[in-house]
């Protein structure tokens, strides 16, 4: 097997971090559709949206149905972010631990933390869902062999009901306020970083983390829950744009297209389409892993994008998932589109220039026998093998490497 990915030191630790992060992201990602539904309704129907509708956006003083019944002044926006989204996360988190049963008790317990606080309780849901499911799982393991035949259903239903009820109360009384305090710290921390223009430093962690496949963990595990709370309060959040900005990846792919190793250039147009329009950022990670110094381009591009977004006061209504230009435009609040596009353009331009310089400098020194040497030669070898395989597979003039292998997304 061609291993031209540089060996990352401490891969065991990396896998562990991926695993924990993947666990957090795994509670959020299956529910992104609900986040997007909420984001669309918010962007369009709230009082400052494109088409304000009071009974949908939930503002003003109205009666929800023509028949005169229903909740007054509620709309869809508030109930979705306060109840639906945390409940889905708590359910999914519980299900990951203990199947359907775990999901049910996770959702019950999540209601406790929701009611016990004044902010959207994503963090609490991510804690209560799996914790409650784990407790039920342990109880199930204990009582399973001790239950008399014919009493299984009775025991099962009541252990779930009792534990769920107890954890909901515990969430309301004890855990909700604790999580509320932690959320308060996190929000003040983010606020401090934004106010002092220190948020671009986040790119130092985010961009290398992305390339190590921690992208979902960082974005959906940490930033999406914090951003959703901020968006509910302010109508938008910059936190959705930290990891998802397609600019840095676009700049790097463009640099590869013009200045990269010749054998890799043909595959980049397809990669650009998949990255920028399809929003699958994973497509550019291998290009950085091949030339690890390019992570500097991603960091500087990301930081420049964040700085631009701070200066223009940009934010998105909900998480643009996947990080495609289309998702970005759909999740931009009314009046913010130019500023959001500027943030992407600046990030792409900076990462393109830095990546181009790094790729150009790399080529001026062909006889670099230091630590870059083996990686570079292996890369070439792999690219050659790839080219040979392509030639064998389809003898003929195929212009782009990617199009031969993947007709679907590029068409």
């Amino acid at each position: 097997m061609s291993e031209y990915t540089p060996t990352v030191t401490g891969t065991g630790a990396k896998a562990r971090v991926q695993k924990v992060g993947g666990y957090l992201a795994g509670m959020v990602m299956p529910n992104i559709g609900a986040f997007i539904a909420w984001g669309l309704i918010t962007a369009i129907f709230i009082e400052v949206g494109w088409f304000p509708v009071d009974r949908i956006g939930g503002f003003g003083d109205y009666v929800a149905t023509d028949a005169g019944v229903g909740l007054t002044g509620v709309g869809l926006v508030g109930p979705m972010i306060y109840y639906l989204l945390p409940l889905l996360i708590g359910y999914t988190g519980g299900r990951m631990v203990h199947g359907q049963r775990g999901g049910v008790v996770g959702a019950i317990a999540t209601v406790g933390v929701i009611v016990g606080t004044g902010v959207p309780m994503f963090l609490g849901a991510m804690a209560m869902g799996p914790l409650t499911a784990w407790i039920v799982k342990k109880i199930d393991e204990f009582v399973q062999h001790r239950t008399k035949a014919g009493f299984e259903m009775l025991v099962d239903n009541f252990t779930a009901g009792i534990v769920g009820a107890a954890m909901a109360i515990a969430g309301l009384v004890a855990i909700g306020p604790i999580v509320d305090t932690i959320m308060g710290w996190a929000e003040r921390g983010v606020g401090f970083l934004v106010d002092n223009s220190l948020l671009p430093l986040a790119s130092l962690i985010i961009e290398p983390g992305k390339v190590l496949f921690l992208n979902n963990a960082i974005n959906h595990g940490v930033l999406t829950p914090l951003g959703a709370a901020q968006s509910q309060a302010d109508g938008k959040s910059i936190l959705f744009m930290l990891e998802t900005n397609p600019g840095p990846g676009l700049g790097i792919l463009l640099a590869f297209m013009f200045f990269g190793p010749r054998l890799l250039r043909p595959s980049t147009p397809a990669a650009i389409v998949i990255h920028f329009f399809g929003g699958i950022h994973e497509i550019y990670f291998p290009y950085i892993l091949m030339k690890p110094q390019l992570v500097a381009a991603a960091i500087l591009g990301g930081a420049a994008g964040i700085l631009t977004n701070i200066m223009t006061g940009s934010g998105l209504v909900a998480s643009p998932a996947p990080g495609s230009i289309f998702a970005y435009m759909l999740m931009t609040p009314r009046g913010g589109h130019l500023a959001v596009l500027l943030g992407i353009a600046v990030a792409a331009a900076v990462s393109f220039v830095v990546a181009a310089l790094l790729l150009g400098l790399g080529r001026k020194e062909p006889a670099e026998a230091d630590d870059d040497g083996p990686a570079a030669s292996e890369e070439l070898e792999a690219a050659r093998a790839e080219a040979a395989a392509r030639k064998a597979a389809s003898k003929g003039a195929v212009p782009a490497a990617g199009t031969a292998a993947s007709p679907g997304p590029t068409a």
Partner: protein
Amino acid sequence: MTTIDGTTVKKLVVACDAGMGSSVMLASTVRKQLAKNGVTVEHTSVQEIPGDADVILTHAGLAERARGVAGGTPVVAFNLFLGDPAVTKVVTAIQKGQTIDV
């Protein structure tokens, strides 16, 4: 070193971190290539790789986790999402019924 006998592969699984993005893309590509070979191609997250998979494809950055889940099932790590030689090798082996070492 594990061997893959192309003729015995009935289910190929592409795994990524979330099982929702890059794995779906690669799985749809491979599925088209193997449409005539009667091979089921699925995509999952690395945590949820099914036990009845015959071959697992995953990015090199996730291979360690995939091997932890996969048991004895061969895990083929690739680096490029488009036109990676390792992926091509597996696909060709299945199409032509060859045996390869991975």
